[in-house]
């Protein structure tokens, strides 16, 4: 473009997005965002049409989580923008970098209750890291640059930019703004010394690894730290994949549905090293008795998390890629007795898959799936019992290979997130593991798969129940099964075929191998519908308000 050349605001939006390396955006057009869609037409930025704005924003989340790049979604004013709220809240709670661009009615009619007008800025206050309304075309490009910078820096998160229609058609001279220099918190040598000292004094230290490790791209530093120190470890739902399952002393997930070994070992530790995690209630159980006798070292990019729920002995806000190497030290055989004890717990409480009977046992099936997946794979989960079974019984090479709605626990997340992941990593094998309840929440996105012939594999785990709620009704509500029966589900394979997606049903344990192979070996998208025993629940389970060592164990019964 020549200096002084004027372009429309809408064209500047696309140009600014492309300047940030974004090659695909997800969205749904409408009246107030038409100029931006017009600018998109024929531009180098690709667009994937979702069939609901929630699906578009979840696809942007999946794109971001699978690739580490910022995801972008578009929606129109009013209902388009309100439909983004759930996905943005999901991105906020899981710290996912997303930029959402919404059309708004023209500035002249804002505040008059115009057609499809909603106070999107007001609405966004509680579901985004930050949000903007651009009221003048001169602010447009600097605001977009700031939005990308805020979304990806520090603790990442969703940012919304609301752009009135008149700003989209106003002319401007495009100038690349100066990049803001983000000031990240810096650790001090004293903090590092204090933390090193605590580690060297510990006898039974434990690493509690959260999603922050993946978000900070600090997986390699974490793995080095574990290798050199030999400190045993557990992970949160979002931390899964940060540590490989064959790592000595790694006990898998902790918390409400964590492994018995993970929860017991954490309760016994004398030093808890919290890395990119935040003491979520699903992790800690009863907070007052969580790792009760442990001192705490808390490492996080977000200073507001330090001391929020548990006062640490040492708190360090900053970049894990620098902090972890600074804390790495070889303490020889100091932890050998503890390592041996942890190894024994791991052995004693390992998962068992040798279940008798003809019916399909989902944990065993998911464990088989994990063994069959190629190295470069992404598993996008929905929310419910199947999600916890995936977390317990599958394993991941990297955190970006496991997409799960952790903080918000949003049903309907899996299918659109998988679509975003497939766009971000076209060479990866992308599998959605969904449940019959969750799948229906964004089932319209099957059209998105059809449209682009995206080879996304769908493993639908069906117990004809809203399983997790049913489990709680069974355990804590005197078996009063209020509205959790989903036995009037549609014929899912027939439904998939309406979207030109082939599929098949399996009902028996002996059909699992062939079913998984058919799904994974199929060329395009595929739906494997798996009917499981509706008596199976997720075990162990730490009841609400209980301490993590007081897990309830297997007590499945037919409902």
């Amino acid at each position, binding site marked *: 473009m020549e200096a002084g050349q004027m372009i429309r605001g809408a064209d500047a939006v696309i140009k600014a997005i492309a300047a940030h390396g974004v090659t695909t955006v997800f969205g749904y057009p409408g009246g107030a965002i038409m100029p931006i869609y017009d600018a998109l037409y024929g531009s180098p930025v690709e667009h994937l049409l979702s069939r609901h704005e929630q699906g578009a924003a979840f696809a942007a989340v999946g794109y971001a989580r699978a690739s580490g790049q910022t995801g972008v979604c578009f929606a129109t004013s009013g209902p388009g923008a309100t439909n983004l709220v759930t996905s943005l809240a999901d991105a906020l709670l899981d710290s996912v970098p997303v930029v959402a661009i919404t059309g708004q009615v023209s500035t002249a009619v804002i505040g008059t209750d115009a057609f499809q007008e909603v106070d999107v*800025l*007001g609405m966004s*206050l*509680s579901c985004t*890291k*930050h949000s903007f309304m651009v009221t003048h075309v001169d602010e447009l490009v600097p605001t977009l640059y700031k939005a990308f910078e*805020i979304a990806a820096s520090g603790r990442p998160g969703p940012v919304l930019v609301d752009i009135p229609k008149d700003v989209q058609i106003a002319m401007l001279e495009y100038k690349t703004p100066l990049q803001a220099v983000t000031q990240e918190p810096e650790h001090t040598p004293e903090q590092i010394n204090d933390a090193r000292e605590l580690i060297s004094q510990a006898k039974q230290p434990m690493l509690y690894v959260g999603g922050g490790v993946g978000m900070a791209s600090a997986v390699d530093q974490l793995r080095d730290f574990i290798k050199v120190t030999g400190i045993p470890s557990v992970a949160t739902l979002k931390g899964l994949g940060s540590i490989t399952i064959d790592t000595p002393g790694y006990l898998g997930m902790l918390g409400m549905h964590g492994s018995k070994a993970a929860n017991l070992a954490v309760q016994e530790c004398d030093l808890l090293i919290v890395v990119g995690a935040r003491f979520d209630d699903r992790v800690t159980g009863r907070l007052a008795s969580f790792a009760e006798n442990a001192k705490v070292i808390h490492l996080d990019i*977000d*200073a*507001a998390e330090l*001391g*929020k729920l548990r006062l640490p002995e040492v708190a360090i806000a900053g970049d894990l890629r620098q902090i972890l190497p600074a804390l790495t030290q070889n303490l020889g055989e100091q932890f050998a007795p503890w390592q041996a004890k942890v190894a024994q717990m791991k052995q004693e409480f390992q998962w068992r898959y040798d279940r008798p009977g003809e019916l399909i046992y989902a944990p065993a099936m998911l464990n088989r799936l994990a063994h069959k997946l190629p190295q470069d794979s992404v598993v996008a989960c929905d929310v419910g019992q199947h999600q916890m079974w995936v977390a317990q019984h599958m394993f991941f090479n990297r955190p970006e290979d496991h997409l799960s709605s952790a903080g918000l626990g949003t049903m309907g997340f899996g299918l659109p997130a998988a679509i975003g992941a497939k766009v971000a990593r076209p060479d990866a094998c992308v599998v959605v593991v969904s449940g019959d309840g969750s799948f229906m929440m964004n089932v319209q996105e099957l059209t998105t798969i059809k449209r682009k012939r995206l080879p996304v594999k769908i493993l639908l785990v069906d117990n004809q129940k809203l399983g997790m709620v049913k489990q709680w009704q069974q355990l804590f509500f005197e078996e009063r099964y209020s509205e959790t029966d989903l036995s009037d589900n549609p014929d899912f394979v027939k439904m998939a075929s309406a979207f030109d997606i082939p599929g098949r049903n399996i009902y028996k344990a002996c059909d699992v191998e062939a079913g998984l192979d058919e799904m994974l070996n199929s060329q395009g998208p595929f739906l494997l519908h798996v009917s499981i025993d509706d008596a199976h629940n997720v075990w162990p389970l730490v009841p609400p308000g209980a301490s993590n060592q007081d897990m309830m164990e297997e007590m499945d019964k037919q409902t």
Partner: protein
Amino acid sequence: MNNYSLALNVQQRPEVLERVLRVVRHRGFKVANLSMQLNSNNSTSIDMLVHSEREIGLLTNQINKLIDVIDCRVLLSSPTAELVQQKG
């Protein structure tokens, strides 16, 4: 119940007060008194008296995270005076 007097310096944006008040409410604090003044340097001063059973650090840490907040100080607090927070 603890009372805290907060002094905030924030960017002049139409929604900034709303942003701050949302966090105050959501984090479990109640505004007892509030005054706001636009400054000539494009900033705005907000003085607030809030009360809550909760520690003020929970609130000031979250307010400091807001992009539009330049700094947030606790001027007076009862009974814990050592929890003064300042944005660097």
